[in-house]
């Protein structure tokens, strides 16, 4: 009974915050989709950190570390650098452009930059295709937590999370999604860090983490080095994993966050938080859980699905039940905080780019806000379809691998057009269309066409990002150089005006 009351109260807090957000919102598209461009550095930090710190940091990430040793942490080092790069190099321009021209989505920015409706459709469909299944992974993660803790079927946790998500995003919009992430992030950090300290003090009372490491040396010392006990993480894969992490700068739900900033000073301070609290603190917690505490406390697991939930299993074995419920709340917080931002991003792309940008250009501010809200429910239904698909046992795959093998390569395909559009005056519409189109087709073919033994021979059995992104970028550059350069009008809007604005005091207000 305690479980249900605690989870009920937790859900109620989120619903009340969403309702409050609806009451104070300005009911405009800019307010609903961009939080009125009022997000300051602290809120932005929680907003972005917990938009990317999904249930993957509790299940998938420690699960891979448990099975393969510490090599997978290079994904984190790459991601921290990638997020910092987004805010140091691309963020100020993207923010200034969208503020000066009232753009509401990064896809809109690029479609205007390249003067191409076709690109708008291509980017929208591509991003939605890769982000929507990833939304489904979040309810799935919570469902697994429910299942492991309470014995209830997976769909109960998935449905609970989905209902919270729909209410939060429909009512609250981007501002409350960002603000709620402070609450959700605090719950998650407390659960993750608290459980780590408590578990270490209970399981390794003599020497803490040193004792855990010593026990792993006795059980299987390869779990403390690369390439790991299964020989997976060779130097080539470590460097490849780092590069895949670097592509974090192109995750659409993170990119859109830069557009909601209050002023340019955010971009000066934000990397500090990413380096210190993200790289040197937050991600170290699940790393210690997955690479030290869990392998020493519960050795011998070989099944990926069991490894995915090993942290929760250790908590349930060694800590009181009420604390396990609190930790599950933390996982729900992580899942909701990520999925909410992904849902916001998806609904903005549907309403602003596909409906208003292509199908109904005369749609009013109020209409596209309504469409964005309705589309949230549709996206959640599709994402739940993914969850049920997995529940039926078709295409089941470890969570970490879904993120890094499918979603990240998909998100990466708009990176050349994004970077080139913001930084390279010579980048052209034809280049962006050709590069993105070929990159996406190559990726899909590489993922779907496999050999009889499951090898992805079109991708040379490499990580999907490794062959597809260079091809995409090369086509973008070559075709851009072979086609007429963009007009002076575009150069004025996207380079001259933006640089003048960022140099002026106006952009600091």
């Amino acid at each position, binding site marked *: 009974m305690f479980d249900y009351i605690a989870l009920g109260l937790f859900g109620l807090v989120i619903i009340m915050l969403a309702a409050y957000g609806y009451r104070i919102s300005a009911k405009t598209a800019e307010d609903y989709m961009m939080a009125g461009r009022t997000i300051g550095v602290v809120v932005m930090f929680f907003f972005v950190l917990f938009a990317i710190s999904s249930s993957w940091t509790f299940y998938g990430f420690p699960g891979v570390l448990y099975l393969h040793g*510490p*090599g997978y*942490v*290079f994904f*984190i*080092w790459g991601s*921290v*650098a990638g997020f*910092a790069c987004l805010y*140091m*190099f*691309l963020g*100020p*321009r993207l923010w200034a452009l969208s503020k000066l021209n009232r753009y509401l989505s990064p896809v809109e920015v690029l479609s205007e930059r390249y003067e191409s409706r076709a690109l708008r459709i291509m980017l929208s469909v591509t991003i939605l295709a890769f982000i929507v299944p990833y939304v489904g992974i979040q309810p799935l993660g919570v469902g697994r937590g429910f299942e492991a803790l309470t014995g209830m079927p997976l769909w109960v946790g998935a449905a609970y999370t989905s209902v919270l998500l729909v209410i939060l995003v429909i009512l609250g919009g981007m501002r409350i999604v960002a603000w709620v992430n402070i609450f959700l992030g605090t719950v998650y950090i407390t659960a993750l860090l608290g459980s780590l300290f408590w578990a270490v003090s209970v399981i390794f009372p003599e*020497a*803490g*983490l*040193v004792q*855990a*490491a*010593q026990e792993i*040396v006795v059980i299987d*010392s390869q779990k*403390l*080095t*690369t*390439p790991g006990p299964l020989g997976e993480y060779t*130097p080539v894969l*470590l*460097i490849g994993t*780092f590069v895949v992490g670097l592509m974090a700068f192109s995750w659409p739900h993170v990119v859109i966050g830069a557009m909601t900033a209050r002023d*340019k000073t955010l*971009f*000066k301070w934000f*990397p*500090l938080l990413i*380096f*210190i609290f993200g*790289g*040197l603190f937050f991600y*170290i917690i699940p*790393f210690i859980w997955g*690479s*030290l505490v869990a392998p020493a406390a519960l050795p011998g697991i070989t099944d990926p699905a069991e490894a995915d939930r090993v942290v929760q299993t250790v908590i349930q074995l060694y800590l009181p039940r009420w604390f396990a419920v609190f930790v599950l709340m933390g996982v729900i917080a992580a899942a909701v905080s990520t999925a909410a931002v992904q849902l916001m991003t998806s609904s903005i792309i549907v309403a602003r780019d596909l409906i208003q940008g292509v199908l109904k250009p005369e749609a009013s501010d109020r209409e596209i806000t309504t469409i964005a809200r309705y589309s949230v429910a549709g996206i959640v239904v599709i994402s739940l379809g993914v969850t049920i698909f997995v529940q039926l046992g078709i295409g089941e795959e470890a969570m970490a691998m879904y993120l890094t093998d499918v979603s990240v390569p998909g998100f990466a395909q708009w990176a050349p057009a994004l970077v080139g559009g913001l*930084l390279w005056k010579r980048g052209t519409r034809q280049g962006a269309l050709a590069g993105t189109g070929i990159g996406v087709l190559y990726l899909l073919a590489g993922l779907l066409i496999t050999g009889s033994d499951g090898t992805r021979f079109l991708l040379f059995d490499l990580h999907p990002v490794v062959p597809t992104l260079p091809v995409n970028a090369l086509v973008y550059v070559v075709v851009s150089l072979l086609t007429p350069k963009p007009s002076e009008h575009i150069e004025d809007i996207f*380079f001259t005006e933006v*640089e003048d604005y*960022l*140099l002026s005091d106006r*952009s600091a207000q």
Partner: protein
Amino acid sequence: MREIAGHWPGRIFLLVLLLSVVVMAVLVAQGITETDVLLFGWMTMPLVLGIGFILVWLVAYLIYFFHFWPYR
């Protein structure tokens, strides 16, 4: 990034970031993460290497963004 690449402090900043990636790749290729040395008795080499990498980026960022960044 255009503003960063447009002056010498910015180019040095970018060079430091790039060099840190190259150095990390070289160390990984040389097998530093394959050694079973544990710093403070529990910190594995992939963790130590990554923390060192983040610290280099942090220091470079602090110096550049707070003293030289044109939009500061």
